[in-house]
């Protein structure tokens, strides 16, 4: 028999039931609200993403049409909506760069780099910002980080693009050695990439490696016979190697492949000038060699004097040697050995004068003169 005195009071039981029911209701409510909130948040995110994407697309279109200011507004809106998207922030920085707001672009990029320091595109844009700010050393570093950074799906193409930007940068602001170092990985570029090989050929010339350049152009010609650019490139490589006659022949082929190209014609004319000026050319008679040496010395003296060259003993000697009264008689009377010796002396004097020319002369030195003097100095 149950002791009725110990039976629980009904109110107390009810309280316990209400207590338990309330706790259960709270837990159920938490579950329902969590589902509801997650649902709302998902819709919110989808709408926000779509809105941000449309702002980004609008900004991109405006940027391509040259309206950087309006584009930046759209990119800013996209970034404000979706801050996690690196592309939006990157586009904003690019827009700012185009607007000339380099400091703000740099700040935006630095924030991005804090999040994605290894991102190739971000580092590449940062390099552009550094160039705009004239900080070439930092630009070079960011270019390198871009080349070795992380890229998206088409990483090889993007990475090569970044490397070419670095190469272009180095061609203007770097040393030939740095440029060549970046070019060497491309020596084994795909054979079917004719345009790439053409470009590499020209860059190898800039990097002081005309033999590699010639190889590149030769490969182009193997695939595309009568390619005027390749012949012109071969001509430039030959020029750099001091093979003026070969250069003349290559430029002639280029002119045949693309008649009327003024640049090619100018280079061909230059080759003719150089060939006429070069005292070391094969098959030139002693007297002619002497005449050419004197003419070369005269041009060198004239060029060096024109850019404020120093009044050295070499310059005085050169003036004496190229004096008009002396020149014809000396050339007529001189025996072959003496002519050769005189020509050698004049060429030595030419090299001495050229080497001692002021730095300002480098910019004004005429191409033909430079090519010939470089050739005889080899």
């Amino acid at each position, binding site marked *: 028999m149950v002791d009725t005195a*110990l*039976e*629980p009071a009904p109110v*107390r*039981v009810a*309280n*316990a*039931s*209400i*207590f*338990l029911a*309330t*706790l259960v209701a*709270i*837990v159920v*409510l*938490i579950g329902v*609200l*969590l589902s*509801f*909130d*997650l649902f*709302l*948040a998902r*819709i*919110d995110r989808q*709408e926000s993403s779509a*809105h941000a994407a*449309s702002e980004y697309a609008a900004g991109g279109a405006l940027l391509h049409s040259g309206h950087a200011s309006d584009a930046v507004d759209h990119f*800013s809106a996209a970034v*404000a909506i979706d*801050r996690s998207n690196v592309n939006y922030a990157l586009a904003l920085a690019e827009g700012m760069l185009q607007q000339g707001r380099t400091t703000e672009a740099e*700040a935006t990029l630095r*924030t991005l780099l804090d999040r994605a320091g290894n991102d190739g595109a971000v580092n590449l844009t940062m390099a552009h910002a550094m160039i705009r700010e004239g900080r070439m050393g930092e630009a070079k570093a960011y270019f390198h980080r871009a080349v070795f950074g992380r890229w998206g799906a088409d990483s090889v193409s993007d990475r090569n693009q970044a490397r070419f930007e670095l190469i272009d940068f180095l061609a203007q602001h770097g040393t030939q050695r740095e440029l060549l170092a970046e070019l060497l990985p491309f020596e084994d570029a795909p054979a079917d990439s004719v345009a790439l090989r053409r470009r590499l050929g020209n860059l190898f010339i800039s990097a002081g490696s005309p033999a590699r350049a010639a190889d590149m152009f030769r490969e182009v010609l193997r695939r595309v016979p009568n390619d005027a650019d390749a012949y012109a490139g071969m001509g430039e490589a030959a020029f750099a190697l001091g093979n003026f006659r070969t250069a003349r022949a290559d430029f002639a082929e280029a002119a045949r492949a693309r008649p009327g190209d003024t640049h090619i014609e100018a280079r061909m004319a230059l080759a003719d000038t150089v060939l006429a000026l070069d005292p070391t050319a094969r098959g030139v008679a002693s007297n002619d060699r002497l005449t050419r040496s004197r003419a070369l010395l005269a041009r060198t003296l004239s060029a060096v004097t024109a850019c404020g060259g120093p009044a050295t003993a070499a310059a005085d000697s050169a003036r004496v040697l190229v004096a008009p009264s002396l020149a014809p008689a000396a050339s007529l009377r001189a025996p072959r050995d003496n002519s050769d010796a005189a020509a050698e002396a004049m060429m030595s004097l030419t090299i001495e004068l050229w080497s001692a020319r002021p730095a300002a002369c480098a910019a004004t030195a005429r191409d033909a003169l430079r090519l010939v003097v470089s050739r005889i100095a080899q």
Partner: protein
Amino acid sequence: MSEAEALAAGTRNTPWYARLVTLVEDLRRREDRLALALSLLIGALVGLVVVAFILLTGRLASHLYPPGGESAWRRIAAPTLGALATGYLLYRFFPDARGSGIPQTRAAMFIDDGRISLRTVLGKFLCCSVSLGSGIALGREGPSVQIGAGIASIIGRRLGLSTAQVKWLLPVAASAALAAAFNTPIAAVLFSLEEIMGDMHAPILGSVVLSSTTSWMVLHLVLGDEPLFHVAAYRLVDPSELLIYAVLGIIGGLGSVAFVRLLLELRKAFARLPAWSVWCQPVAGGLCVGVFGYYAPAVLGVGYDQVDRALSGDLLLHAVVLLAILKIVATAVCYASGNAGGIFGPSMFIGAMMGAAVGHVAHGLFPATTADAGAYALVGMGTAFAGIVRTPLTSVIMIFEVTRNYTIIVPLMVSNLLAFYISQKLQREPIYEALAKQDGLHLPTAEFRALSRQLRVSTATKPAPDPLDASLSVEEAHRRVGSTPPGSWPVSDDRGLVGMVRTADIAMAMTNGRNTTTLRELLDAAAADLSDDDDRLAHVHSDQPLGLALARMGATGHTVLPVVSRANARKLLGVVALADVLTAYGVERVADLPRPPEPAHG
């Protein structure tokens, strides 16, 4: 048989149910476990409700102001109609859902025994969603606090908790609400203690922290790990910049006072209008913000996107000055006219704009030695908050949490303290207290809280009289204390204090013929059912609150308590008497109350 056992033996007599009921019953009995469980549940529930509130408000706003398709007429129509609709709802169905929510939460806590009705919670949620979504220039944090506190109040009462327990749940829920609304779990804890409770040492600290953390976790689960504002890594460029931050503090303080006074005066003016117009008064706020929004859309709504732009230095000088002025007026009119929404968020907005304005001028004048305008906007946010809401500690931590930027803390502290000081000097009453007073509610003021904190036992401690020796007989003791007014005497032995004996007990023992009984025996008999030594020796320490002495006098029946050393409870430092306690509280007519006898000198 316990209730749990009884339940288990009842109709639903299954083992799992019995175990569950035992568990529940255990939870009910153990206050610490209940507090832990409720902190977690309330934190999660309030966090989810506040997140829903934020998302729904945002969705409503995006429908009323569709991105890219916004036309100017909407900017006047939406807030005006929104204010009209919510004005009627507030008047007709939810009168307690008007305004911010923080004074109302405090009123519920200090006046209404922690009671906030379900109707108020629903009304606050609905009306604030509509008014904030329609572009009314108020904030969501205050309403979130009231909604959260209301949920806690309903749960507490439904669970059958005592009034004191329900009251304790309110700040717990308030911190959860603020943590979710502002994504600032630490500042939420501080705000809850500093503003809602008014006591940084409240015993519910653990529950407040737990609920805040839970709510914050819920927020991150649903909305991800995104700070409310995105700020560049600003820093102090030059030590001399602190002077400019000090100037910002002064301007922030003056701006805060201007805002608070304008709001209070406008509220007073609206209160003077005929009672029948209460339902349509919010339209004035809606129309005001609508007209402002027609020309400057950035004034509409909470405006955190504009704060973000100011923090990034994107807004020009004339824009930030204009926005600061328009927001001050719009928020004051919206709030004073009775719209539902808080001033927490607008304070941040106003501060950011004022800061950005100072920053633009400073950076223009001293570009080499000053940070960008965004850094000043960041500090300005905290400055205005400290000046308007008057919680300087919360504002410093809040800015840190909102921006996750540590480097600007020192300038922020300088600026905040100046703004706080100026605001305190020029506008004596903090805004929430002033608002409550306008509604006829007299909440505990900061002065009262400060006074309570200042009143310690040491304030009323007097030198102790010469203790009676524990070996004295009742007769001898009566001879010594007989002529003194009724009270209690310290009793000691060779090891020090052993207790307090009431003169009334000595007199009664004499009457009962127990003349030879020693005082020790008398004390032992009085404390026979007390096992704890501390209980046997009722005492206080000099650094304890004076209120504790009063409570202990009530519990022990002694009108005089010994003040003892914390290092040695038997070392008597003095005594505190009821009369002296009351005198310390400013109660003057205490001549009839017993005071301890003066110690015998010489």
